[in-house]
C-alpha cells in the first residue's frame, strides 16, 4: 500500500490566519452567544426544545472555535479524523449510558 502524504508534514507550510479572519470569527461567536442566551431567557417555556437548541448552538460554537481559532481547518486531515473519533467515542458513552438509564 502506498501512503503518500499520509503524515502531516512541516514542509507543507503553515497557514497564517489574518487578523480580520479572527475578528469575524469572534463576531460570529458573540452572535451565537447572544442567540443562545436569548433563547434561554425568552424561550423558557420551550423546555426540552431549549435544551436541544442550547446544545446545538454550543456545538456550533465549539466547531467554530476548533476550525478557525484552533486552525483545524488548515491542519492535516488526520487531526480532524482523530477529533471526530474522540468525540464520537464520547457521544457513544453518553448514548450507551442513556440506553441503560432510560430503560430502568
Amino acid at each position, binding site marked *: 500500500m502506498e501512503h503518500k502524504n499520509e503524515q*502531516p508534514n512541516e514542509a507543507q507550510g503553515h497557514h497564517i490566519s489574518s487578523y480580520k479572519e479572527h*475578528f469575524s470569527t469572534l463576531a460570529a461567536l458573540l452572535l451565537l452567544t447572544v442567540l443562545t442566551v436569548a433563547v434561554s431567557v425568552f424561550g423558557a417555556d420551550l423546555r426540552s426544545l*431549549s435544551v436541544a437548541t442550547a446544545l446545538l448552538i454550543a456545538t456550533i460554537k465549539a466547531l467554530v472555535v476548533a476550525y*478557525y481559532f484552533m486552525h483545524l481547518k488548515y491542519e492535516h486531515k488526520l487531526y480532524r479524523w*482523530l477529533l471526530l473519533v474522540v468525540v464520537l467515542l464520547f457521544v457513544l458513552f453518553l448514548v450507551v449510558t442513556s440506553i441503560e438509564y432510560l430503560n430502568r
Partner: protein
Amino acid sequence: MEHATGLVLPNSGHNRDAEASKMGMWLFLFTELLLFGGLFLVYMVYRMLNAEAFLLASFELNIALGTINTVVLLVSSMTIAMAITAIQKGDRKTSVLLLYVTVALSLVFMVIKFFEWSAKINYGYFPGMEVYQNLPAGESLFFFLYFFMTSLHALHVIIGAVFIAVVIYRTNKGFVTAEKYTLTENAGLYWHLVDLIWIFLFPLLYLIH
C-alpha cells in the same frame, strides 16, 4: 541532547519537531476533553434522574455574570489566536501585547467567577454548609456539580494563564520567533480548550431552563 557521538538518524527523536509537539498537544487536549467528559456524563445522568430539581437549582445562577464571562473568554480566545498570527508575521511586540491582554482577560474571568462563587457561598450553597445540607433532593447534586465543574474549569484557566505567562517570557527572551512559534501555538490550543469547555458548561449550568 544526550548523545553527541554516534550515528545521527534522519528521524531522530532528538530533532526539533514542531509537528510532534503540536500533535502531542492535541492528544493531551483529547484527554482533557474526556476528563470533563466524565463530569458531563455524571451531569447527564443526574439531570435525567432529577430533572425538576436541576431546573429549579439552575435558576439560582446568575445568567448575566455567566454571559459576561462567556464573552470574556471568547474575546481572550481571539486575542491569543491573533498573538499567533502576529508572531507568525514576525511581529513580536504585538504578539506579546496580545498575550498580555489574554492573561488580563483570564484575570477578569477569575474575578467575576470569584464574586459568583462567594455569592453562592454566602447563601450557603457550598457542599457541607448548613443550607446545602437541607436542600431538596437533587438540588444539592446540582450545586455540587456546579462547584466541581466550575472549579476544575477555573483550575484550567489558571494553568492556561501561567502557560501564557511562560510564553510571554520566552517570547521576550527571543526564544519564540517567526520560525519557531510552536510554544505560542500550543498555549493557544490549550487556551481554546479552556474556552471550549466553558462553551458547554455555560448553557448546561446557567441556561437550561
